[in-house]
Protein backbone atom coordinates (compact mmCIF):
# COMPACT_ATOMS: atom_id res chain seq x y z
CA UNK A 1 0.00 0.00 0.00
CA UNK A 2 1.15 3.48 -0.83
CA UNK A 3 -0.39 6.18 1.31
CA UNK A 4 -0.93 9.86 0.60
CA UNK A 5 2.21 10.91 2.50
CA UNK A 6 4.37 8.68 0.33
CA UNK A 7 2.76 10.00 -2.86
CA UNK A 8 3.45 13.57 -1.73
CA UNK A 9 7.06 12.70 -0.85
CA UNK A 10 7.73 11.11 -4.25
CA UNK A 11 5.93 13.96 -5.99
CA UNK A 12 8.19 16.46 -4.26
CA UNK A 13 11.32 14.51 -5.26
CA UNK A 14 10.06 14.44 -8.87
CA UNK A 15 9.07 18.14 -8.70
CA UNK A 16 5.45 17.30 -9.53
CA UNK A 17 2.53 19.38 -8.35
CA UNK A 18 -0.52 17.22 -7.74
CA UNK A 19 -4.08 18.31 -7.04
CA UNK A 20 -5.91 16.77 -4.07
CA UNK A 21 -7.81 14.44 -6.38
CA UNK A 22 -4.60 13.38 -8.11
CA UNK A 23 -2.95 12.48 -4.82
CA UNK A 24 -5.73 10.03 -4.00
CA UNK A 25 -5.79 8.62 -7.52
CA UNK A 26 -1.98 8.13 -7.54
CA UNK A 27 -2.11 6.45 -4.15
CA UNK A 28 -4.53 3.82 -5.39
CA UNK A 29 -2.98 3.39 -8.86
CA UNK A 30 0.58 3.10 -7.59
CA UNK A 31 -0.61 0.61 -4.97
CA UNK A 32 -2.14 -1.48 -7.73
CA UNK A 33 1.15 -1.41 -9.66
CA UNK A 34 3.06 -2.56 -6.59
CA UNK A 35 0.52 -5.30 -5.89
CA UNK A 36 0.99 -6.52 -9.43
CA UNK A 37 4.77 -6.62 -9.03
CA UNK A 38 4.28 -8.41 -5.68
CA UNK A 39 3.00 -11.47 -7.53
CA UNK A 40 6.61 -12.12 -8.57
CA UNK A 41 7.42 -12.90 -4.94
CA UNK A 42 5.18 -15.95 -5.17
CA UNK A 43 7.87 -17.55 -7.35
CA UNK A 44 10.85 -19.51 -6.05
CA UNK A 45 13.64 -17.02 -6.79
CA UNK A 46 16.45 -18.05 -4.47
CA UNK A 47 19.72 -17.87 -6.38
CA UNK A 48 18.23 -16.01 -9.34
CA UNK A 49 20.07 -12.75 -10.05
CA UNK A 50 17.86 -9.70 -10.56
CA UNK A 51 17.34 -8.87 -14.22
CA UNK A 52 18.80 -5.41 -14.65
CA UNK A 53 18.95 -5.66 -18.42
CA UNK A 54 16.97 -7.80 -20.82
CA UNK A 55 19.87 -8.14 -23.24
CA UNK A 56 23.07 -9.49 -21.76
CA UNK A 57 25.65 -8.39 -24.34
CA UNK A 58 29.27 -7.82 -23.47
CA UNK A 59 30.56 -4.29 -23.03
CA UNK A 60 29.51 -2.04 -25.89
CA UNK A 61 32.30 0.49 -25.55
CA UNK A 62 33.24 3.54 -27.55
CA UNK A 63 36.81 4.37 -28.62
CA UNK A 64 38.15 7.43 -26.79
CA UNK A 65 38.26 9.65 -29.88
CA UNK A 66 36.87 13.19 -29.92
CA UNK A 67 34.17 14.17 -32.37
CA UNK A 68 32.91 17.68 -33.07
CA UNK A 69 30.65 19.23 -30.46
CA UNK A 70 27.66 21.45 -31.14
CA UNK A 71 28.26 25.08 -32.06
CA UNK A 72 27.53 27.14 -28.97
CA UNK A 73 24.56 28.99 -30.51
CA UNK A 74 22.96 25.66 -31.27
CA UNK A 75 23.60 24.34 -27.75
CA UNK A 76 22.15 27.49 -26.23
CA UNK A 77 19.12 27.52 -28.56
CA UNK A 78 17.05 25.57 -26.05
CA UNK A 79 18.17 27.58 -23.01
CA UNK A 80 15.38 29.32 -21.07
CA UNK A 81 17.62 32.41 -20.97
CA UNK A 82 21.21 33.11 -21.89
CA UNK A 83 23.79 35.03 -19.84
CA UNK A 84 27.58 35.06 -20.06
CA UNK A 85 27.51 32.45 -22.86
CA UNK A 86 25.72 30.06 -20.53
CA UNK A 87 22.29 28.71 -19.65
CA UNK A 88 20.78 31.18 -17.19
CA UNK A 89 18.58 29.55 -14.57
CA UNK A 90 17.02 30.59 -11.27
CA UNK A 91 19.59 30.17 -8.55
CA UNK A 92 19.04 26.81 -6.81
CA UNK A 93 19.76 28.34 -3.40
CA UNK A 94 17.31 31.21 -3.82
Amino acid at each position, binding site marked *: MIDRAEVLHVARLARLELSEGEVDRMASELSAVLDHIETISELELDGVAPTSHVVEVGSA*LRADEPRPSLPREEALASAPAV*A*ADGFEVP*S*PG*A
Partner: protein
Amino acid sequence: MSWEPVIGLEIHVQLKTQTKMFCSCELSFGDPPNTHTCPVCLGLPGSLPVANEAAIRFGLKIGLGLGCELAPRSIFHRKNYFYPDLPKGYQISQYDEPLCRGGRLGDVRIHRVHLEDDAAKLVHVGASGRIHGADSSVVDFNRGGTPLVEIVTEPDIRSAERAREWLILLRETMRQLEVSDVNMEEGSLRCDANVSVRRAGESELGTKTELKNMNSFRFVERGIKAEVARQVALLEAGQPVVQETLHFDPQSGSLTSLRSKEEAHDYRYFPEPDLVPVAVTPEMVEAVRAELPELPAERAARYETELALSADSARALAFRPELGRYFEAVLERADGAPAQTVANWVAGELATRLGDADPAQSKVAPDALARLVAMVGEKAVTAGAARQVLDRLVADGGDPAAIVEAEGLGAVGGGDELAGAVRAAIEANPDAAEKVRGGKAQAIGPIIGHVMRETRGAADAGEVTRLVREQLGV
Protein backbone atom coordinates in the same frame (compact mmCIF):
# COMPACT_ATOMS: atom_id res chain seq x y z
CA MET B 1 38.02 11.07 28.88
CA SER B 2 39.49 11.42 25.41
CA TRP B 3 37.67 11.19 22.09
CA GLU B 4 38.72 9.32 19.00
CA PRO B 5 37.85 10.70 15.55
CA VAL B 6 36.72 8.15 12.98
CA ILE B 7 37.17 9.35 9.42
CA GLY B 8 36.36 7.88 6.04
CA LEU B 9 36.97 9.67 2.75
CA GLU B 10 35.12 9.81 -0.54
CA ILE B 11 37.35 11.00 -3.32
CA HIS B 12 36.31 12.00 -6.82
CA VAL B 13 39.02 11.83 -9.45
CA GLN B 14 38.46 13.30 -12.90
CA LEU B 15 39.96 10.96 -15.46
CA LYS B 16 42.21 12.44 -18.13
CA THR B 17 40.66 10.70 -21.07
CA GLN B 18 40.34 12.51 -24.40
CA THR B 19 36.55 12.50 -24.35
CA LYS B 20 33.65 12.48 -21.93
CA MET B 21 32.28 9.44 -20.13
CA PHE B 22 29.28 8.77 -22.35
CA CYS B 23 29.77 10.95 -25.46
CA SER B 24 32.55 11.98 -27.83
CA CYS B 25 32.83 15.62 -26.73
CA GLU B 26 36.42 16.54 -26.02
CA LEU B 27 37.40 17.22 -22.41
CA SER B 28 38.57 20.74 -21.79
CA PHE B 29 39.62 22.90 -18.92
CA GLY B 30 39.38 26.65 -19.21
CA ASP B 31 37.81 26.74 -22.71
CA PRO B 32 34.99 29.23 -23.43
CA PRO B 33 31.73 28.07 -21.80
CA ASN B 34 29.43 25.65 -23.61
CA THR B 35 31.77 24.90 -26.50
CA HIS B 36 32.08 21.17 -25.67
CA THR B 37 28.51 19.88 -25.62
CA CYS B 38 26.28 17.57 -27.62
CA PRO B 39 22.78 16.12 -27.28
CA VAL B 40 24.06 13.38 -24.93
CA CYS B 41 25.80 15.60 -22.38
CA LEU B 42 23.04 18.22 -22.63
CA GLY B 43 20.51 15.52 -21.76
CA LEU B 44 18.42 16.17 -24.86
CA PRO B 45 15.55 13.73 -25.49
CA GLY B 46 16.33 10.77 -27.70
CA SER B 47 20.09 10.84 -27.19
CA LEU B 48 21.84 7.68 -26.04
CA PRO B 49 25.00 7.29 -23.96
CA VAL B 50 27.84 4.90 -24.87
CA ALA B 51 30.58 4.22 -22.33
CA ASN B 52 34.14 5.36 -23.05
CA GLU B 53 36.57 2.44 -23.34
CA ALA B 54 39.49 4.47 -21.92
CA ALA B 55 37.46 5.47 -18.86
CA ILE B 56 36.71 1.81 -18.10
CA ARG B 57 40.40 1.00 -18.60
CA PHE B 58 41.48 3.82 -16.25
CA GLY B 59 38.94 2.60 -13.70
CA LEU B 60 40.46 -0.88 -13.86
CA LYS B 61 43.95 0.59 -13.55
CA ILE B 62 42.93 2.43 -10.39
CA GLY B 63 41.31 -0.77 -9.09
CA LEU B 64 44.50 -2.75 -9.66
CA GLY B 65 46.64 0.04 -8.20
CA LEU B 66 44.55 -0.01 -5.02
CA GLY B 67 44.51 -3.79 -4.81
CA CYS B 68 40.77 -4.06 -5.40
CA GLU B 69 38.79 -7.00 -6.62
CA LEU B 70 37.62 -6.24 -10.17
CA ALA B 71 34.05 -7.17 -10.98
CA PRO B 72 33.75 -9.32 -14.12
CA ARG B 73 30.36 -7.66 -14.62
CA SER B 74 29.23 -4.28 -13.37
CA ILE B 75 26.30 -2.07 -14.25
CA PHE B 76 25.41 1.60 -14.28
CA HIS B 77 22.55 3.06 -12.28
CA ARG B 78 20.64 6.30 -12.48
CA LYS B 79 20.95 8.45 -9.37
CA ASN B 80 17.97 10.77 -9.51
CA TYR B 81 17.93 14.33 -8.26
CA PHE B 82 17.19 17.76 -9.62
CA TYR B 83 19.83 20.42 -9.83
CA PRO B 84 20.57 22.81 -12.70
CA ASP B 85 24.05 21.34 -13.26
CA LEU B 86 22.51 17.96 -14.07
CA PRO B 87 20.56 18.24 -17.33
CA LYS B 88 19.31 14.65 -17.45
CA GLY B 89 17.71 14.88 -14.01
CA TYR B 90 19.95 12.02 -12.93
CA GLN B 91 23.62 11.21 -12.70
CA ILE B 92 24.81 7.99 -14.30
CA SER B 93 26.71 6.26 -11.53
CA GLN B 94 27.21 2.78 -10.14
CA TYR B 95 25.31 1.46 -7.17
CA ASP B 96 25.27 -2.14 -5.97
CA GLU B 97 27.45 -3.57 -8.74
CA PRO B 98 30.50 -1.27 -8.91
CA LEU B 99 33.57 -1.82 -11.06
CA CYS B 100 35.87 -2.54 -8.09
CA ARG B 101 35.45 -3.59 -4.47
CA GLY B 102 37.76 -3.92 -1.50
CA GLY B 103 41.45 -3.06 -1.61
CA ARG B 104 43.92 -1.08 0.40
CA LEU B 105 46.25 1.87 0.08
CA GLY B 106 48.81 2.22 2.86
CA ASP B 107 47.01 1.57 6.15
CA VAL B 108 43.56 2.50 4.85
CA ARG B 109 41.17 -0.07 3.41
CA ILE B 110 39.25 0.77 0.25
CA HIS B 111 35.54 0.02 0.32
CA ARG B 112 34.80 0.44 -3.38
CA VAL B 113 35.71 2.23 -6.59
CA HIS B 114 33.11 3.12 -9.18
CA LEU B 115 32.62 5.13 -12.35
CA GLU B 116 30.21 8.00 -12.98
CA ASP B 117 29.80 11.20 -14.97
CA ASP B 118 30.54 14.66 -13.60
CA ALA B 119 28.01 17.47 -13.26
CA ALA B 120 28.29 20.73 -15.18
CA LYS B 121 29.74 23.89 -13.70
CA LEU B 122 27.30 26.24 -12.07
CA VAL B 123 28.39 29.85 -11.75
CA HIS B 124 26.37 31.84 -9.28
CA VAL B 125 25.76 35.44 -10.15
CA GLY B 126 23.84 38.02 -8.21
CA ALA B 127 24.19 40.38 -5.33
CA SER B 128 26.52 38.41 -3.09
CA GLY B 129 28.10 36.17 -5.73
CA ARG B 130 27.61 33.18 -3.44
CA ILE B 131 25.23 30.24 -3.29
CA HIS B 132 22.94 31.71 -0.70
CA GLY B 133 21.19 34.85 -1.73
CA ALA B 134 22.20 34.67 -5.41
CA ASP B 135 19.56 35.75 -7.90
CA SER B 136 20.41 33.62 -10.88
CA SER B 137 22.99 31.08 -11.97
CA VAL B 138 24.69 30.35 -15.26
CA VAL B 139 25.42 26.78 -16.34
CA ASP B 140 28.50 25.81 -18.37
CA PHE B 141 28.12 22.26 -19.66
CA ASN B 142 31.75 21.82 -20.79
CA ARG B 143 32.53 19.86 -17.61
CA GLY B 144 29.22 17.98 -17.64
CA GLY B 145 29.83 14.33 -18.50
CA THR B 146 33.55 14.26 -17.63
CA PRO B 147 34.48 10.73 -16.48
CA LEU B 148 34.84 10.48 -12.73
CA VAL B 149 36.06 7.71 -10.52
CA GLU B 150 34.73 7.74 -6.99
CA ILE B 151 36.93 6.06 -4.40
CA VAL B 152 35.32 5.30 -1.05
CA THR B 153 37.48 4.29 1.92
CA GLU B 154 36.54 2.37 5.03
CA PRO B 155 36.44 4.55 8.18
CA ASP B 156 40.06 3.71 9.01
CA ILE B 157 41.53 7.16 9.51
CA ARG B 158 41.95 8.47 13.07
CA SER B 159 43.05 12.08 12.71
CA ALA B 160 42.75 15.08 10.42
CA GLU B 161 46.51 15.07 9.86
CA ARG B 162 46.47 11.42 8.78
CA ALA B 163 43.56 12.17 6.44
CA ARG B 164 45.67 14.82 4.75
CA GLU B 165 48.74 12.59 4.54
CA TRP B 166 46.75 9.70 3.13
CA LEU B 167 45.11 11.94 0.57
CA ILE B 168 48.56 13.02 -0.61
CA LEU B 169 49.53 9.35 -0.94
CA LEU B 170 46.37 8.78 -2.99
CA ARG B 171 47.15 11.76 -5.20
CA GLU B 172 50.69 10.49 -5.87
CA THR B 173 49.29 7.06 -6.63
CA MET B 174 46.81 8.49 -9.15
CA ARG B 175 49.53 10.66 -10.67
CA GLN B 176 51.87 7.73 -11.15
CA LEU B 177 49.05 5.64 -12.60
CA GLU B 178 48.70 8.46 -15.17
CA VAL B 179 44.92 8.46 -14.99
CA SER B 180 44.27 12.00 -13.78
CA ASP B 181 45.83 15.44 -13.32
CA VAL B 182 44.72 15.21 -9.66
CA ASN B 183 44.76 18.96 -9.15
CA MET B 184 42.59 20.00 -6.20
CA GLU B 185 42.55 23.67 -7.17
CA GLU B 186 41.23 22.82 -10.64
CA GLY B 187 38.79 20.29 -9.22
CA SER B 188 40.24 17.18 -10.86
CA LEU B 189 40.67 15.77 -7.33
CA ARG B 190 37.83 16.40 -4.87
CA CYS B 191 37.41 15.11 -1.37
CA ASP B 192 34.45 14.66 0.95
CA ALA B 193 34.92 13.32 4.47
CA ASN B 194 32.63 11.29 6.70
CA VAL B 195 33.42 12.23 10.27
CA SER B 196 32.29 10.87 13.61
CA VAL B 197 33.82 10.67 17.07
CA ARG B 198 33.62 8.11 19.85
CA ARG B 199 35.10 7.60 23.30
CA ALA B 200 38.61 6.18 23.09
CA GLY B 201 38.45 2.40 23.36
CA GLU B 202 34.85 2.24 22.18
CA SER B 203 34.22 -0.03 19.17
CA GLU B 204 30.86 1.26 18.05
CA LEU B 205 30.70 4.15 15.59
CA GLY B 206 29.15 7.47 16.49
CA THR B 207 26.72 9.40 14.29
CA LYS B 208 28.59 10.73 11.26
CA THR B 209 28.34 13.92 9.28
CA GLU B 210 29.53 14.46 5.73
CA LEU B 211 31.90 17.32 4.96
CA LYS B 212 31.70 18.49 1.36
CA ASN B 213 34.00 20.10 -1.13
CA MET B 214 37.19 20.88 0.68
CA ASN B 215 39.29 22.05 -2.23
CA SER B 216 42.82 21.87 -0.87
CA PHE B 217 44.79 19.44 1.27
CA ARG B 218 45.05 22.10 3.96
CA PHE B 219 41.29 22.67 4.00
CA VAL B 220 40.68 18.92 4.29
CA GLU B 221 42.77 18.90 7.44
CA ARG B 222 41.27 22.10 8.84
CA GLY B 223 37.70 21.15 7.95
CA ILE B 224 37.95 17.76 9.64
CA LYS B 225 39.62 19.31 12.68
CA ALA B 226 36.83 21.87 13.00
CA GLU B 227 34.14 19.19 12.62
CA VAL B 228 35.76 16.89 15.19
CA ALA B 229 35.93 19.80 17.64
CA ARG B 230 32.27 20.67 16.97
CA GLN B 231 31.11 17.08 17.56
CA VAL B 232 33.18 16.70 20.74
CA ALA B 233 31.74 19.96 22.10
CA LEU B 234 28.19 18.77 21.36
CA LEU B 235 28.70 15.38 22.99
CA GLU B 236 30.41 16.84 26.03
CA ALA B 237 27.43 19.15 26.46
CA GLY B 238 25.19 16.09 26.38
CA GLN B 239 23.73 16.93 22.97
CA PRO B 240 23.43 14.52 20.04
CA VAL B 241 25.27 14.83 16.71
CA VAL B 242 22.74 15.14 13.88
CA GLN B 243 23.48 13.26 10.66
CA GLU B 244 23.78 15.95 7.99
CA THR B 245 25.86 17.31 5.15
CA LEU B 246 28.10 20.23 6.02
CA HIS B 247 29.96 22.82 4.03
CA PHE B 248 33.29 24.04 5.42
CA ASP B 249 34.06 27.71 4.84
CA PRO B 250 37.86 28.05 4.98
CA GLN B 251 37.66 31.83 5.38
CA SER B 252 35.66 31.79 8.59
CA GLY B 253 36.42 28.20 9.62
CA SER B 254 32.67 27.68 10.08
CA LEU B 255 30.54 24.70 9.12
CA THR B 256 27.08 25.18 7.67
CA SER B 257 24.37 22.61 6.96
CA LEU B 258 23.87 22.19 3.20
CA ARG B 259 20.52 20.50 2.74
CA SER B 260 18.13 18.37 4.70
CA LYS B 261 19.07 14.74 4.79
CA GLU B 262 15.57 13.53 4.04
CA GLU B 263 15.65 14.74 0.45
CA ALA B 264 19.37 14.54 -0.13
CA HIS B 265 19.64 10.78 0.25
CA ASP B 266 16.48 9.71 -1.54
CA TYR B 267 18.08 9.14 -4.94
CA ARG B 268 15.77 6.34 -6.15
CA TYR B 269 18.57 4.43 -7.89
CA PHE B 270 17.57 2.09 -10.68
CA PRO B 271 19.58 0.31 -13.40
CA GLU B 272 20.38 2.58 -16.36
CA PRO B 273 18.40 0.99 -19.20
CA ASP B 274 20.33 2.86 -21.91
CA LEU B 275 23.67 1.22 -21.10
CA VAL B 276 24.55 -2.46 -21.30
CA PRO B 277 26.53 -4.01 -18.44
CA VAL B 278 30.31 -3.60 -18.43
CA ALA B 279 31.88 -7.01 -18.97
CA VAL B 280 35.53 -7.00 -17.94
CA THR B 281 37.49 -9.76 -19.64
CA PRO B 282 40.71 -11.33 -18.30
CA GLU B 283 42.44 -9.94 -21.42
CA MET B 284 41.41 -6.37 -20.49
CA VAL B 285 42.69 -6.86 -16.94
CA GLU B 286 46.02 -8.33 -18.11
CA ALA B 287 46.54 -5.51 -20.59
CA VAL B 288 46.01 -2.96 -17.81
CA ARG B 289 48.17 -4.88 -15.35
CA ALA B 290 51.06 -4.83 -17.84
CA GLU B 291 50.97 -1.01 -17.75
CA LEU B 292 51.12 -0.69 -13.96
CA PRO B 293 54.19 1.10 -12.60
CA GLU B 294 55.59 0.44 -9.13
CA LEU B 295 53.35 2.65 -6.99
CA PRO B 296 54.44 4.88 -4.11
CA ALA B 297 53.03 2.70 -1.33
CA GLU B 298 54.80 -0.41 -2.70
CA ARG B 299 58.03 1.48 -3.29
CA ALA B 300 57.97 3.00 0.21
CA ALA B 301 57.31 -0.43 1.74
CA ARG B 302 60.19 -1.92 -0.25
CA TYR B 303 62.58 0.82 0.93
CA GLU B 304 61.52 0.34 4.52
CA THR B 305 61.71 -3.45 4.61
CA GLU B 306 64.54 -4.24 2.18
CA LEU B 307 66.75 -1.21 2.77
CA ALA B 308 65.70 -0.37 6.34
CA LEU B 309 65.14 3.28 5.47
CA SER B 310 63.24 5.50 7.91
CA ALA B 311 59.55 5.94 7.09
CA ASP B 312 60.15 9.61 6.23
CA SER B 313 63.00 8.90 3.81
CA ALA B 314 61.07 6.03 2.23
CA ARG B 315 58.07 8.31 1.64
CA ALA B 316 60.17 11.17 0.30
CA LEU B 317 61.85 8.89 -2.23
CA ALA B 318 58.72 6.92 -3.14
CA PHE B 319 56.44 9.91 -3.66
CA ARG B 320 58.73 11.28 -6.34
CA PRO B 321 59.59 8.38 -8.63
CA GLU B 322 62.42 10.32 -10.29
CA LEU B 323 64.02 10.82 -6.87
CA GLY B 324 63.57 7.11 -6.09
CA ARG B 325 65.18 6.05 -9.37
CA TYR B 326 68.12 8.39 -8.80
CA PHE B 327 68.54 7.13 -5.24
CA GLU B 328 68.69 3.56 -6.51
CA ALA B 329 71.28 4.54 -9.13
CA VAL B 330 73.51 6.16 -6.47
CA LEU B 331 73.03 3.25 -4.07
CA GLU B 332 74.12 0.79 -6.74
CA ARG B 333 77.39 2.71 -7.18
CA ALA B 334 77.91 3.57 -3.51
CA ASP B 335 79.92 0.44 -2.80
CA GLY B 336 78.37 -0.65 0.46
CA ALA B 337 77.52 2.76 1.92
CA PRO B 338 74.50 2.45 4.24
CA ALA B 339 71.25 2.96 2.30
CA GLN B 340 70.00 5.45 4.90
CA THR B 341 73.10 7.62 4.40
CA VAL B 342 72.61 7.62 0.63
CA ALA B 343 68.90 8.38 1.15
CA ASN B 344 69.79 11.37 3.34
CA TRP B 345 72.07 12.76 0.67
CA VAL B 346 69.54 12.27 -2.14
CA ALA B 347 66.23 13.08 -0.41
CA GLY B 348 67.76 15.70 1.86
CA GLU B 349 70.82 17.54 0.58
CA LEU B 350 70.41 17.03 -3.15
CA ALA B 351 66.61 17.41 -3.30
CA THR B 352 66.84 20.64 -1.27
CA ARG B 353 69.30 22.06 -3.79
CA LEU B 354 67.39 20.93 -6.88
CA GLY B 355 63.84 21.74 -5.80
CA ASP B 356 61.34 20.09 -8.16
CA ALA B 357 63.92 19.34 -10.86
CA ASP B 358 64.66 15.75 -11.82
CA PRO B 359 68.14 14.86 -10.44
CA ALA B 360 68.77 12.69 -13.51
CA GLN B 361 68.67 15.92 -15.55
CA SER B 362 71.05 17.72 -13.16
CA LYS B 363 74.83 18.05 -13.44
CA VAL B 364 75.33 15.71 -10.49
CA ALA B 365 76.09 12.27 -11.91
CA PRO B 366 74.99 9.36 -9.67
CA ASP B 367 78.62 8.22 -9.79
CA ALA B 368 79.86 11.54 -8.44
CA LEU B 369 77.38 11.58 -5.57
CA ALA B 370 78.23 7.96 -4.76
CA ARG B 371 81.94 8.86 -4.57
CA LEU B 372 81.22 11.88 -2.40
CA VAL B 373 79.18 9.75 0.03
CA ALA B 374 82.05 7.23 0.11
CA MET B 375 84.56 10.00 0.89
CA VAL B 376 82.45 11.14 3.83
CA GLY B 377 82.27 7.53 5.00
CA GLU B 378 86.05 7.22 4.88
CA LYS B 379 86.37 10.58 6.70
CA ALA B 380 88.35 11.92 3.74
CA VAL B 381 85.99 14.92 3.92
CA THR B 382 83.70 16.11 6.68
CA ALA B 383 79.94 16.29 6.12
CA GLY B 384 80.18 20.08 6.15
CA ALA B 385 82.86 20.16 3.47
CA ALA B 386 80.96 17.58 1.45
CA ARG B 387 77.96 19.92 1.38
CA GLN B 388 80.19 22.56 -0.16
CA VAL B 389 81.39 20.00 -2.70
CA LEU B 390 77.76 19.17 -3.49
CA ASP B 391 77.07 22.88 -4.11
CA ARG B 392 79.86 22.82 -6.69
CA LEU B 393 78.58 19.57 -8.24
CA VAL B 394 75.09 21.04 -8.58
CA ALA B 395 76.47 24.20 -10.18
CA ASP B 396 79.15 22.77 -12.45
CA GLY B 397 79.18 18.98 -12.23
CA GLY B 398 82.55 17.26 -12.17
CA ASP B 399 84.44 14.89 -9.92
CA PRO B 400 84.16 15.31 -6.13
CA ALA B 401 87.76 14.28 -5.46
CA ALA B 402 89.03 16.90 -7.89
CA ILE B 403 86.85 19.58 -6.27
CA VAL B 404 88.11 18.65 -2.80
CA GLU B 405 91.66 18.86 -4.09
CA ALA B 406 91.18 22.17 -5.90
CA GLU B 407 89.33 23.86 -3.05
CA GLY B 408 91.45 22.47 -0.25
CA LEU B 409 88.40 20.92 1.38
CA GLY B 410 90.07 17.69 2.45
CA ALA B 411 89.49 16.73 6.05
CA VAL B 412 92.09 18.03 8.47
CA GLY B 413 93.10 14.79 10.10
CA GLY B 414 94.31 14.27 13.67
CA GLY B 415 97.99 15.09 13.78
CA ASP B 416 99.73 18.38 14.33
CA GLU B 417 97.71 20.54 11.99
CA LEU B 418 94.44 20.08 13.85
CA ALA B 419 96.10 20.12 17.26
CA GLY B 420 97.62 23.49 16.32
CA ALA B 421 94.25 24.87 15.28
CA VAL B 422 92.79 23.72 18.60
CA ARG B 423 95.61 25.37 20.56
CA ALA B 424 95.04 28.64 18.68
CA ALA B 425 91.29 28.46 19.37
CA ILE B 426 91.82 27.97 23.09
CA GLU B 427 94.18 30.95 23.19
CA ALA B 428 91.63 33.07 21.34
CA ASN B 429 88.84 32.14 23.80
CA PRO B 430 90.43 32.34 27.29
CA ASP B 431 87.10 32.93 29.07
CA ALA B 432 85.46 29.90 27.53
CA ALA B 433 88.53 27.80 28.25
CA GLU B 434 88.44 28.87 31.90
CA LYS B 435 84.76 27.93 32.22
CA VAL B 436 85.33 24.50 30.69
CA ARG B 437 88.18 23.88 33.07
CA GLY B 438 85.85 24.96 35.90
CA GLY B 439 83.39 22.23 34.91
CA LYS B 440 81.00 24.06 32.54
CA ALA B 441 81.00 21.51 29.72
CA GLN B 442 78.66 23.49 27.46
CA ALA B 443 81.07 26.46 27.36
CA ILE B 444 83.16 24.44 24.88
CA GLY B 445 80.96 25.64 21.96
CA PRO B 446 82.82 28.86 21.03
CA ILE B 447 86.16 27.03 20.97
CA ILE B 448 84.89 24.30 18.66
CA GLY B 449 83.18 26.92 16.49
CA HIS B 450 86.50 28.76 16.20
CA VAL B 451 88.28 25.62 14.99
CA MET B 452 85.54 24.82 12.46
CA ARG B 453 85.71 28.37 11.09
CA GLU B 454 89.48 28.31 10.80
CA THR B 455 89.42 24.96 9.02
CA ARG B 456 86.43 25.98 6.85
CA GLY B 457 84.43 23.04 8.08
CA ALA B 458 87.10 20.56 7.05
CA ALA B 459 87.68 19.25 10.56
CA ASP B 460 85.71 16.43 12.10
CA ALA B 461 83.66 17.91 14.94
CA GLY B 462 83.97 14.80 17.11
CA GLU B 463 87.73 14.80 16.75
CA VAL B 464 87.92 18.55 17.51
CA THR B 465 85.88 18.08 20.71
CA ARG B 466 88.15 15.27 21.81
CA LEU B 467 91.28 17.38 21.21
CA VAL B 468 89.88 20.46 23.00
CA ARG B 469 89.01 18.35 26.05
CA GLU B 470 92.42 16.72 25.96
CA GLN B 471 94.25 20.04 25.81
CA LEU B 472 92.12 21.55 28.58
CA GLY B 473 92.60 18.45 30.67
CA VAL B 474 88.91 17.71 31.24
